């Protein structure tokens, strides 16, 4: 087992980042012009990093798989972005945001990283406003805020239900400006296939031009991965169809640690699965929990009637409703963190109280808010989400449906948890560098800031913190090393090898010539992952999961069919390459879940729970970051551990009850 150096600076937690910046090495302006940086991905982290590095003077090569950088899936984030501005005068502070994030992560994140995140959160809001991001405002012209899960203050900034879109378009505009200045070169519809290591350092990538089908080589002085998470391992998720983990797996195959893969976030408010042909799940923003109340019937006969379709939610009067989150967690109510809300929904459905035909749904109800505030105000806040819900389900949640004993009841939404975000990812040190020198990972792609569970409105915060305010500094500590300054030719033998290996891999896939499509097998992988490596895991189930993943792996290797040829655009081939890596990722998630004999955050092992059904951590044995290293195609990965050191926050059992 290797020793792991996270390079956390000395000093009190509140001074570490300031000290780091004061003493890190910089690259002088003239030398920046000679250095090239590859940034893979154009989401919040990738676009903001590429723009900032370009502005500083570095030459940036920026890649994305879509037709434009603006399509990256950060765009779909709805609810908001956290910052410790304390504009509401409700007692917020950098320390409180730090504390809430560490606690929300179930005490499995690094203190130093999270504190830095909280520190730079305020600059992000300043930066975005300066770019022209139209955040919601109050009548007096000040910025507005709302509340999100896991916090007792209002610190979330938002732009309708489209905050991710507006922040991404802000970063995209900064990126566009650098493209115009000639500092960033964009490569759209390119997918990174491999990272090229020369003399032990990341010096370039091989990428596939998705339109021509050709592999192309790119050299640089450092490589930054901002390629998002691995949620699509589960096939059905709220991720976009193209989201994949292939860049991260390529790094893993080269020796990079994959950390905490078992920490997968299951978002409580998604539209339930409606059939067996669905391709993707739709999220309903967590912001709805500000005014919506989550419930199932108290009486099992009501639940049965709902499942049979003989009753509707609005037929059930107030006294027969079980607002189970408010009942179990009086202090936080409907605003408990996502992992807690998801598990509570599963608990009720497991007991037979699910409210749709599959028994896998709960209600999110706005009757109380509409009766209190009026439909206009509620629609002002959530109108676009109501419309989206109606388009998908044909039910309008703002519509009056019933009146019982003088109380008006509106159609409730039906929701159920779904895979949404992955806290695990490539291991990085304090400088956001992986254990492969010169290879950095930012945003959802790395494991660093959210521990075992991410709080709402913190993904946008982390993506932009990494890209605007952290990486552009820390990467200079690496780039200042003159040993890496000489340019490397893409004719170097390492590039030849990488390209040859990839061509062979593609040929192998094309030549299987079996019978099954990529999607039909991805769907099977997803079902295995959801059933055995999903919301409630057991040692036994995980072992079954392993067997089943191995079966689908074999099926993939022997019975895959890809139409067409490898020349030119071939969507099926691209999906096949990704699926191969999802299978590897699925195995890693299962390994990590089996190793971690405790429940924490997004990782719930049914053997480890309290009598009340809450997650039971084991700090004595599992107070560490798991770091998995590739040891060969058919060998088990090797586990190393980065011990967690808490100097500021007292590690305790999470409590959202009082």
């Amino acid at each position, binding site marked *: 087992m290797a020793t792991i150096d996270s390079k956390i600076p000395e000093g009190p937690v509140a001074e570490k980042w300031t000290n780091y910046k004061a003493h890190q090495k910089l690259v002088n302006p003239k030398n920046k012009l000679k250095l090239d940086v590859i940034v893979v991905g154009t989401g919040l982290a990738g676009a903001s990093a590429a723009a900032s590095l370009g502005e500083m003077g570095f030459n940036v090569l920026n890649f994305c798989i879509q037709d434009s950088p603006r399509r990256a899936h950060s765009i779909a984030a709805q609810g908001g972005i956290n910052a410790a501005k304390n504009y509401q005068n409700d007692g917020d502070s950098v320390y409180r945001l730090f504390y809430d994030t560490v606690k929300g992560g179930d005490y499995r994140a690094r203190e130093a990283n999270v504190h830095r995140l909280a520190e730079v959160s305020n600059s992000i809001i300043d930066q975005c406003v300066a770019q022209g991001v139209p955040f919601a405002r109050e009548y007096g012209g000040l910025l507005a805020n709302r509340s999100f899960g896991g916090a007792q203050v209002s610190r979330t900034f938002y732009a309708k239900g489209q905050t991710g879109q507006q922040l991404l378009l802000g970063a995209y505009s900064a990126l566009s400006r650098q493209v115009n200045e000639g500092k960033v070169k964009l490569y759209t519809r390119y997918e990174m296939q491999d990272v090229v290591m020369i003399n032990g350092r990341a010096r370039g990538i091989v990428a596939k031009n998705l339109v021509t089908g050709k592999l192309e080589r790119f050299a640089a002085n450092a490589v930054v991965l901002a390629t998002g998470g691995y949620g699509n391992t589960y096939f059905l998720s709220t991720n*976009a169809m193209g989201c994949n983990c292939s860049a991260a797996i390529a790094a893993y195959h080269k020796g990079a640690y994959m950390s905490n893969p078992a920490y997968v976030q299951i978002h409580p408010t998604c539209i339930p699965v409606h059939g067996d042909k669905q391709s993707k799940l739709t999220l309903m923003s967590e912001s709805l929990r500000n005014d919506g109340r989550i419930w199932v019937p108290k009486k099992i006969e009501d639940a049965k009637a709902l499942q049979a379709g003989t009753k509707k939610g609005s037929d059930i009067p107030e006294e027969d409703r079980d607002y189970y989150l408010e009942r179990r967690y009086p202090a936080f109510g409907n605003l408990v963190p996502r992992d807690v809300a998801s598990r509570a929904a599963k608990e009720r459905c497991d007991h037979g109280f699910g409210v749709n035909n599959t028994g896998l749904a709960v209600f999110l109800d706005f009757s109380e808010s509409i009766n209190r505030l009026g439909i206009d105000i509620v629609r002002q806040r959530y109108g676009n989400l109501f419309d989206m819900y109606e388009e998908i389900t044909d039910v309008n949640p703002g519509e009056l449906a019933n009146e019982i004993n003088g109380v008006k009841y509106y159609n409730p939404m039906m929701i159920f948890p779904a895979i949404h975000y992955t806290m695990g990812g490539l291991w990085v040190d304090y400088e956001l560098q992986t254990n492969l020198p010169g290879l950095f990972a930012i945003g959802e792609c790395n494991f660093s800031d959210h521990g075992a569970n991410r709080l709402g409105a913190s993904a946008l915060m982390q993506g932009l913190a990494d890209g605007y305010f952290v990486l552009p500094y820390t990467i200079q500590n690496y780039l200042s090393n003159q040993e890496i300054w000489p340019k490397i030719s893409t004719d170097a033998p390492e590039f030849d090898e990488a390209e040859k290996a990839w061509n062979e891999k593609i040929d192998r896939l094309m030549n299987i010539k079996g019978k099954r499509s990529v999607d039909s097998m991805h769907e099977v992988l997803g079902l295995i992952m959801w059933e055995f490596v999903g919301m409630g895991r057991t040692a036994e189930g995980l072992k079954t999961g392993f067997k089943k993943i191995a079966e689908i792996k074999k099926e993939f290797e022997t019975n895959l069919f890809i139409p067409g040829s490898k020349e030119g655009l071939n969507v099926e081939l691209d999906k096949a390459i990704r699926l191969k890596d999802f299978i590897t990722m699925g195995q890693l998630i299962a390994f990590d879940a089996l190793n971690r004999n405790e429940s924490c955050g997004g990782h719930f092992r049914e053997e480890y729970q309290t009598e009340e059904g809450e997650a039971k951590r084991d700090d004595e044995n599992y107070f560490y970051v798991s770091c998995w290293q590739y040891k060969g195609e058919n060998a088990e990965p090797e586990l190393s551990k980065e011990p967690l050191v808490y100097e500021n926050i007292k590690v305790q059992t999470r409590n959202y009850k009082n």
Partner: protein
Amino acid sequence: MDNIINFKIRVWRQNGPKEKGQFSEWYDSKELKMDITTDTSFLEMLDILNEKLIEAGKEPFVFDHDCREGICGMCSLYINGHPHGPAQGATTCQIYMRRFKDGDTITVEPWRSAGFPVIKDCMVDRGAFDKIMQAGGYVSVRTGAPQDANAILIPKQNADMAMDAATCIGCGCCVAACKNGSAMLFLSAKVSQLALLPQGRPEAAKRAKAMLAKMDELGFGACTNTGACAAECPKQISLSNIARLNREFIKAKLAD
């Protein structure tokens, strides 16, 4: 199941920008045993069609799509004569099969515009939109430490109007809807958003001029105020943005 609908569908097939394209044969959902229910999304229906084609050893039909939540702007199909299909204020990925009737025929085409060459089938190259943005669709601010976010008050009304304009997803529907193939609605949304905010004011006129010049250069047509763009826009971007763009443009011209 009783909510299954049957229909015939044909899709545009084209191998590359310079190749001649044509419609596919009519695929019969019943013959192909697609079993499409009314709560299936339009793109899920196309996924199922593709699965059937692959099963038969044929190449699947290529189209752009990604988030499937109506926000990334990637999906771009011209369905039965309407960009993004029959629903108002919705993208292709937000259309559900309950919008169609049993026995309907469905014709799927790409965005057709000189500015958007076909890559394959219904996948088009919208790189021109990036180029228009690069010409000036930003506020020239450096990453660093700008003043506090609340230092400049912005009236809620202006912030809301800016937000409405900023809602544009850059899908290109406006160009596909326009008989002249003009990108004015797209461009005006960005110009308006930034012109309405104090942060964007200093460069407002310059921005309008630069973006318009780029649009002309890239082969998009001129605007004749027909309004098809706003009528078809999935984000219901208002035509008044074009008026605001024109005001900024005139200001820039007067300053010249």
